[in-house]
Every structure is written in structure tokens, then in C-alpha cells.
């Protein structure tokens, strides 16, 4: 368990106690592939989405027939949207069949110990009153829960996105979302929420990427490389 900072005024020498590490295969290939496709798709969606909402003053010299850049921005947005949706669907599936770190239950703070962990992580990561919280091998329960919220935001954004898309498409997938529009008070309402969620994703990405580096730096367990290669480094005796 964590240790209060105040209790330690002298720093022990790390070398006095050699630690043995073992490699743990945490993120299976599908999770990693999912992660990076998702990262690329979301960044693309955020950038193109922002441009759709607030087109930049560009290429004004031309006549309409000479260019199609706004059309391309939208095309890329829609393309990325499909990539992102099916990728997400694959991750949902993997949540049932993947290893324990990928399983759905790791996203919910169902057990009291997980909830305790959330408090500890909060104290350690945000307040830094506990310098080091519990170290989960997979994502810790705060991260897990945030990812869960993020998944909900994915769902919401997909619904509003496809609801908007339904009015410009005749294919079955978007058409399934037609009924959303009147529920949200017309397309204006749908667009508004779709746009607002952009900022949730932007904030998430900032914090998430930062924390990935932070944990890597603080814990030295190869957090960053784990999402590339799948392996984390754990002390021998420690593998929850």
C-alpha cells in the first residue's frame, strides 16, 4: 500500500536493494492495434470536425469548381468515422474474449478494493500527497473508469455523428440513426451536442497522453512501450 510522503525524510539508496523485474504481457495485439487505430481516427475526427464547425479562411482565390477542399475535409471525417466505429466495435468484442487486462470488468469499480484504489490513485496522481499509489499491472481503476466514460462518449458521439450523417446518406448504417434527430430537437440540437463532445475528446487526449508519460516516468515500468509492444515490467512478486 501507499506511503505518506511525510513519513520519509531520508531517501534510501535504490541500489542497496536490487529489484528483479519480470515481463508481463498486458496488452494483446488486438488491443494495441485497436488503440492506435483509435488514436489516429480520433485525432483525425477532432481536427476535421473542428474544421467542419469553423472552416478556415483558405484558398479563396479559386472558383468553386476548381476545388473541393471542404468536401475532402468532410469526406475524411466520415471515412475516419467509419474506421473508428468498426474499430470500436472490435474492441467491444475483445472486451469479452481478451485477457484479464482487456476484460470489461476491469473498467468498472465494482469491488471495494477497486474503489479504494480510485481514492489512492487520486491522492497519488492528482494531489501528489501519496507519492505512489497502488500499481495495477493493467490500467488502474481510475484510468479504467475514465476509459469507460470515454467509451460512453464514443457511443454518444457515434450516435450523434451517424444521426447527422443519416440525412446525407442512403446506406443502411446511417439510416438506422434517423430517429435520433427529432428526439434531440432537430438537427440543430444534434449538431450542437456533437460539436460540444469534441472538447471532451480534446481534453481527454491531453490528459491521457500526459498521464501515460507521467506514469512511465514515475513508475519506470515501460508504460509507454507497453501500448506498442504489449509488455510491462513488474517486480517478481507483484502481479495482481
Amino acid at each position, binding site marked *: 500500500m501507499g506511503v505518506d510522503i511525510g513519513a*520519509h525524510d531520508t531517501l534510501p539508496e535504490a541500489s542497496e536493494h536490487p529489484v528483479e523485474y519480470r515481463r508481463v504481457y498486458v496488452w494483446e495485439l488486438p488491443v494495441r492495434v485497436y488503440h492506435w487505430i483509435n488514436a489516429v481516427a480520433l485525432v483525425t475526427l477532432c481536427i476535421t470536425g473542428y474544421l467542419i464547425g469553423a*472552416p478556415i479562411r483558405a484558398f479563396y482565390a479559386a472558383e468553386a*469548381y476548381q476545388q473541393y477542399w471542404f468536401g475532402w*475535409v468532410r469526406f475524411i471525417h466520415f471515412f475516419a468515422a467509419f474506421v473508428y466505429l468498426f474499430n470500436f466495435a472490435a474492441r467491444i468484442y475483445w472486451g469479452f474474449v481478451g485477457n484479464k487486462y482487456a476484460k470489461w470488468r476491469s473498467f468498472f469499480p465494482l469491488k471495494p478494493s477497486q474503489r479504494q484504489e480510485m481514492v489512492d490513485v487520486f491522492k497519488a496522481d492528482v494531489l501528489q500527497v501519496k507519492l505512489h499509489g497502488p500499481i495495477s499491472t493493467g490500467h488502474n481503476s481510475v484510468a479504467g473508469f475514465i476509459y469507460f466514460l470515454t467509451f460512453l462518449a464514443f457511443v454518444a458521439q457515434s450516435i450523434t455523428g451517424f444521426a447527422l450523417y443519416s440525412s446525407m446518406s442512403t446506406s443502411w448504417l446511417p439510416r438506422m440513426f434517423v430517429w435520433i434527430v427529432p428526439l434531440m430537437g432537430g438537427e*440543430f440540437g444534434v449538431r450542437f451536442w456533437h460539436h460540444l463532445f469534441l*472538447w471532451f475528446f*480534446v481534453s481527454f487526449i491531453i490528459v491521457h497522453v500526459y498521464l501515460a508519460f507521467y506514469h512511465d516516468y514515475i513508475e519506470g515500468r515501460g508504460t509507454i512501450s507497453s501500448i506498442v509492444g504489449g509488455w510491462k515490467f513488474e517486480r517478481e512478486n507483484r502481479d495482481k
Partner: protein
Amino acid sequence: MGLSIWQSMQQKGYSRRDFLQFCSAAAIVAGLKETGVAQVVSAFEKKEKPAVVWLHFQECTCCSESFIRASHPIVADALLDVLSLNYTETLMAASGFQAEKSLNDTIRDHKGKYIVLVEGAVPTGADGVYCMIGGKTAESILQTVAADAAAVVAWGSCASNGCVQAAKPNPTGATPIHKLVNKPVINVPGCPPIADVMMAVVTHLLVLGQLPALDSLGRPKEFYGRRVHDTCYRRPNYDAGLFVESFDDENARKGYCLYKMGCRGPVTYNACSVVKWNEGTSYPIQSGHGCIGCSEEGFWDNGPFYQHLPSFPGFGIESTADTIGTVVGVATLAGVAAHAVVTNVRKQKVIAEVHSEEHKEQ
């Protein structure tokens, strides 16, 4: 009493050929194919001129005004030949007692067969006293008249979705018709609806004798199936990213897309960019102003009109999602940066802590 439309045309000296011509024009209006003409003719030959009642509640009467701008058929012909408009406060000769008589006679003599066109919303606040006609509340009149109607049409945004009087804070409890009557209502939104669309809805009902196909909001698909944006002639400019940046700038003078001036065309279902207004003369965008979304529910509360997204109340002037988003984004960045600085300042200690923790547990 009533003559069939064919008989009444005969009396006026129209030949059958004229009549067929009239029918095919009407059929085109109603969106029929050539083969449907026979059906129209028989409908006209058999039917008496249908009794129609036009009710007026919380309105600005622009729907009536729009209706009389119809060009095919022109409204004089419609009034004299197509329908028997027995009650409309705007145009009827009778007033007061005699006007009420016209209404009551129609309800009695054409029970179950007359058509009700409603212009305006119905205020339900303060027991309905915010709109009273002949000493009766709008709501009670609506209920009485709608009860035995063959069909109810809600003209304009007022009757279909409440329109301006229902905008926040809706001081009189203005309510659209479909929320008050227990039968299907054809919503013909728009502030006002396009004259020729109104006429076409009437002809569709009277010529085909059936309800036009409606969407989930009760609007005729014929005219509300597409967004203004989908058929806007400025659309190529939108796709090319050529936008008006300020009214009457160089781009405005070239007719670029009005998206950045707040145009609601991308979120508005209406026929403006195809049917256009005033016999095809123009429509808002063609004359340089963005669409304000006048046929969409709640469009008054989606302002300011010159912004692409609405303002957030309580966040000061001009707070759109983007300003709030930027603030959140910057705050997040700042928080992260602060956190990083703190972490680095205490770097040694932090790392040591982590390791000492591990020692202890070992």
C-alpha cells in the same frame, strides 16, 4: 347544396378539355405522375367542393398572407373553384354573430367531412384567456371544431411547433396543435410556409382525397424530406470551402456559401431551395441572408442567428461551444503543465518514494 368541382366548372362554361387541363395542373402540383390524372379527374367529378374551416389563434397571420400569394393555382381560383372556405377570420364577409354561424353551420352540415386548417398556436396558460374569440378560449374552439373534422392541417411553425410565442420563456403557454387534438395532424411548418407548398398540401388532400405521406414529425415528405442545404445552389461553394466572412464582403458579392454567417440550411428541412418563394422568385439564401431555420422546432431558441452554434446562457456574451471548449482545453493543458512542473520539482523525492515503497514490500 354543393356542386361537384366539375359541375361548377361546367356552369362557368369551362369545357371538359379545360377541365382536364386544370386537373393535370393540379396533379402536377400534387406531385402525381401522368398516370394518376384519371384518378384526379374522378375525384373532382364526384366530389362536392369540400368544406374547409380556417381557424386563427396565436398568430401573426403571415400564414394567411402567404397562402394568398399562391400562384398555382392562384388563390382566387382555389377559393372559388376548389374548396369552400366557410370560415376564415381574415377574409370572410361575415363578422361576429354571422361569422360564428358560418362556423357552426359547417360543423353541423359537414360532420366528419370538413377539413380544418389551423393557423397559430394555442395558449394553455391561465386557463386559455390569452386567446379568446367570441368570448370562448382558443382551446375550446379548437376542440369543438377538430372533433368532427376529416383532417386537421397545422399551418406554419406556430401551429406545428409553437413558433415565436413558444420561444423561451413562452409567457402564455403557447402549444402546437398536435399536442392538443386527438387525431393525426399534418404539420406544414415554416414561418410562414411557402405559398405554393400550402396550396399543394391542400390540393393533395382535396384532389387525392387522402393524407400526403408524412414523416415522423407529421410533415409531408413531399416538401420536408430534404434539407435546404441539400439542394442549395450555393452548395458547391460550401464543398469548395468558399465562405462569406462578413455581409456584403467580396465573397458575399460573389454569392459564396453563408455557412459562416450562421446559415441553418444544413439543419433545416424545407423546400425553399427547390420550390423557392413567391412563384420561384428567390429564397432567403439567394438574397444574401442565411437560413434562420424557420421550419424547425424551437428555431427561435437556437440563436443568435448569426452564429453557427448557440450561445451558452450564463457564460457571458458570445460564449459558444468553441469558446468554452477552448477554455476547457487550455485549462487542461495548463493543469497538465503545472502538474508536470510540480512533478519535476519533486522528481528525486517522487522517484525515491516509489522505489523505497518497493523495497519495503520486498
